[in-house]
């Protein structure tokens, strides 16, 4: 049986990159995600991470997201969460929620990332 690996999709509307994490993401996918994020942040793009369809993520993935913030020149990474779902619960348990700008839908995440880009 082959176990599904989390999918990473990147969309580039205007000057913002939206990175969607689909399915389950853990230590086995965190390095690949970190590479994607470092490239996008290096392009000077605002970054919004869409976690609304993420079924699972773990601390290694949160570390990859925190690592991306170091390439954002002082800007904060914007996360789009589904209320009560895996990502929001992990942020609560880890105490790392305050490290990110949190939104609860994709449109708000895009707007927040774009506004940071203009600052």
């Amino acid at each position, binding site marked *: 049986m082959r*176990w*599904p*690996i989390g999918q990473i999709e990147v969309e580039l509307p205007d000057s913002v990159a939206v990175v969607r994490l689909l399915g*389950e993401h*853990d*230590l*086995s996918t965190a*390095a690949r995600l970190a590479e994607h994020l470092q490239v996008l942040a290096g392009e000077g793009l605002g970054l919004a991470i869409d976690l609304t369809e993420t079924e*699972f993520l*773990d*601390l*290694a993935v949160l*570390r990859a997201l925190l690592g991306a913030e170091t390439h954002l020149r002082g800007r904060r990474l914007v996360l789009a969460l589904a209320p*009560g779902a*895996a990502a929001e*619960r*992990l942020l*609560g*348990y*880890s*105490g*790392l929620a305050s490290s990110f700008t949190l939104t609860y839908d994709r449109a708000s995440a895009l707007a927040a990332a774009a506004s940071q880009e203009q600052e």
Partner: protein
Amino acid sequence: MSRPGYRQLEITVPAEDNYLAQVRWLARTFAEDCGSPRDRADDIALAVNEACANVIIHAYSDDRGPLRLRAWQETDAVVYEISDNGTPVAKPAPGRAGGRGIPIIQAIADDLKIEGPGQYGTRLEIRFNL
């Protein structure tokens, strides 16, 4: 209808990150079979995932070793044991620093016991009340 103490789970896999999804699925399914609601089972799977990730990151320096997961049902709880044969001197691979995994487990679990790291590895026993 299961009797308390009847359900048990035991699996040993290589301490490699591509086994995490399978281990997590087993942990979640076992919790649900023991009567945990879906959301609680998801959190239990997260806690077990973090314990297993710690083994993968910290237990073995160069050579890979085993990651063991045991679980059993008690009258009012489901208990998971995660253990390895690692040594106290093992260091995380480059780029895989640790931290915060144990606090996440403590935030989810009702009790956590840690033995080691010692000569025979490390053993975590994590209890979740039903």
